[in-house]
């Protein structure tokens, strides 16, 4: 008898083969140019005040795209690449974006750079892996792409060779990539929605293009394609085992009911009265959104507030946790958590988050909570919040049972109601296995 996983894998392979055949037949001999302008638009003369302004604009836009986040290894030179990005299909190593002519993109043209962003193709025509979020960057305008390129040309060259990806068969082949693209990718061109305000359009553009919010907040199917009908509907981040909560659901991370300035504060400082960022979003704030100017931050807030809210997914009626588990959990809470989060989960404004009524505590999946308890974490240090508070790691203090008990207690105390956390969930998180 075949295991269901094997059947799924075989089915996926069969589909891949089929699509690959179709893709080969329709293989475009010329890159899809879409809206490419003719000639090299980096015709702005270097060294002029205009050029300096373009570089400055590009630096800002590169931050909004958080290019540096992935294209910098731990402790490495900025933009020199080499960071390993874990995907369900293997490791992808980010590339060198510095101006080095051999190892970086110093010999690229603005058009070639735009082809990468817009169409997911490298200078030599090779298809790029969508760990590079060109499914979002494809919406970036040519003008913004050129500005980012002008800025990257100004990044000092670093002669660091790119490391080959370590992907499993069949994902390591260009044919598989072509098939994936045939299924999940079309180059796009940004058009404002004339029925909406300028501000809303600016927010929509930033969220969908450079912000690449969908890369994490839109769920993916088994082949890593975005499930477009559930855009920003929340999903597990592939390879990272964090859950990116839904932005279209006010019971998760939706901000439909937040005042605009609180959304701006969350994006620019990492902390707001009704919530703070952790895990991968802490990186996004630290490296990217804290640099949003007031106007752009406000535009994103406008767009996010107006995202159509979906009714919270009805969770299966959960069985009330066993009383003994709650009691054990409370004992752990009183000993290790109450000191900061308070006797009744009330927290301290500006320092320690409340746990009573906290959306992050009540998410149906407990994966983020378990990670926070095991690994701890500081809020990102930002210009607006330069000395953040932090939570200690408990992985060597609490057993799997302790963590399951205390989280089950926290999820069911002070008016909270959420499914119990199992010891097996904690074990999986500790072992780095996907939930």
């Amino acid at each position, binding site marked *: 008898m075949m295991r269901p996983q094997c059947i799924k894998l075989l089915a996926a392979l069969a589909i891949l083969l089929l699509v690959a055949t179709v893709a080969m037949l329709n293989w475009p001999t010329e890159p899809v140019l879409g809206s490419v302008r003719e000639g090299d638009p980096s015709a702005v003369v270097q060294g002029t005040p205009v050029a300096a302004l373009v570089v400055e604009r590009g630096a800002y836009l590169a931050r909004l795209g958080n290019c540096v986040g992935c294209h910098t290894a731990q402790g490495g030179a900025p933009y020199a690449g080499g960071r390993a990005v874990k995907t369900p299909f293997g490791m992808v190593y980010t590339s060198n974006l510095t101006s080095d002519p051999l190892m970086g993109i110093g010999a690229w043209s603005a058009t070639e750079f735009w082809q990468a962003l817009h169409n997911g193709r490298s200078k030599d025509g090779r298809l790029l892996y969508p760990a590079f979020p060109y499914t979002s960057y494809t919406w970036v305008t040519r003008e913004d792409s050129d500005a980012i390129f002008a800025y990257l040309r100004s990044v000092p060259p670093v002669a660091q060779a790119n490391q080959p990806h370590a992907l499993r068969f069949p994902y390591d082949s260009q044919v598989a990539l072509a098939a994936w693209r045939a299924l999940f990718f079309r180059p796009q061109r940004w058009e404002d929605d004339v029925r909406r305000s300028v501000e809303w359009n600016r927010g929509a553009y930033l969220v969908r293009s450079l912000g690449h919010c969908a890369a994490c907040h839109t769920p993916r199917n088994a082949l890593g394609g975005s499930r477009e009908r559930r855009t920003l509907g929340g999903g597990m981040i592939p390879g990272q085992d964090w859950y990116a909560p839904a932005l279209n659901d006010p019971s998760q991370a939706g901000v439909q009911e937040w005042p605009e300035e609180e959304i701006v504060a969350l994006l620019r400082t990492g902390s707001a009265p009704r919530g703070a960022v952790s895990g991968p979003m802490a990186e996004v704030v630290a490296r990217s959104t804290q640099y949003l100017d007031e106007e752009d931050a406000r535009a994103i807030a406008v767009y996010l507030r107006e995202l159509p809210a979906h009714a919270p997914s009805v969770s299966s009626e959960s069985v009330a946790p066993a009383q003994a588990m709650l009691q054990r959990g409370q004992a752990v809470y009183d000993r290790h958590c*109450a000191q900061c989060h308070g*006797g*009744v989960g009330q927290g301290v404004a500006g320092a320690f988050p409340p746990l*009573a009524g906290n959306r992050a505590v009540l998410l149906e999946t407990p994966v983020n909570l378990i990670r926070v308890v095991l*690994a701890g974490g500081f809020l990102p240090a930002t210009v607006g919040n330069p000395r953040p*508070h*932090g939570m*200690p790691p408990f992985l060597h*203090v609490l057993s799997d049972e302790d963590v399951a008990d205390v989280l089950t207690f926290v999820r069911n105390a002070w008016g909270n109601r959420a499914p119990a956390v199992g010891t097996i969930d904690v074990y999986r998180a500790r072992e780095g296995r996907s939930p």
Partner: protein
Amino acid sequence: MVIYRYRWPGRGLAVSLARLLCIAAGAACGLVAAQDMVTVDAGMASRVLACTACHGAEGRSTPLGYYPRIAGKPAGYLYNQLLSFRDGRRSYPQMAYLLEHLTDAYLEEMATYFAELEVPYPSPPLLEVPALTLERGRRLVQHGDAARGIPACVQCHGSAMTGVVPSVPGLLGLPRDYLNSQLGAWQTGQRRAMAPDCMARVARHLTPEDVSAVTGWLAVQPVPKGGEPARQFPGLLPWACGGIKGVQVQEGRP
């Protein structure tokens, strides 16, 4: 109720404001009873609670016997270690994760905070170390082994082995397991410092027996004078060290 050592003068006002905010927000904390209240100071103590879970209250090491004490270590040393964890020269995933999104300025403030804490050292643990091992350890610490090119520990870590400000740590009052694992990490490259990495060079001269002898001797020494780091090195440094700036060295850069 938690009370920290340092109280911010405006604390009472802040608590009242916080309560007002809570009530205004309609949060559950409007109903918090006095015994459930938590207050925080404006200084560093509440900000470094993430550190003290392992390194002990006020930066003392815990009785668990592995995590090193950080209270009273030289600020420059602590700062360099924080940078090294964050940037990958020291390999300890939990520390790297905690520090990933903290700025140099904030890490320096944390380092200074712990460096300025004066917390008494407990008496050394009762470990059974054979007399011959202890003697071999003492000789290596105080005199090194010129024949094998091993400098004495005291040349850099201070004549009392309590460190030298601002960048060299004292090695007394640390768990032996921690000392063993650090010397092992220096040998294998798991722990590195800024180049030239003098400590890696020293560690690679040591045999397993040397390591055991040195850590055995260090771990059972009482800590003199509250462990205060020395103001200066006893003489010229034997080798150049990337983490120690502006001092004279016996030999040129290796």
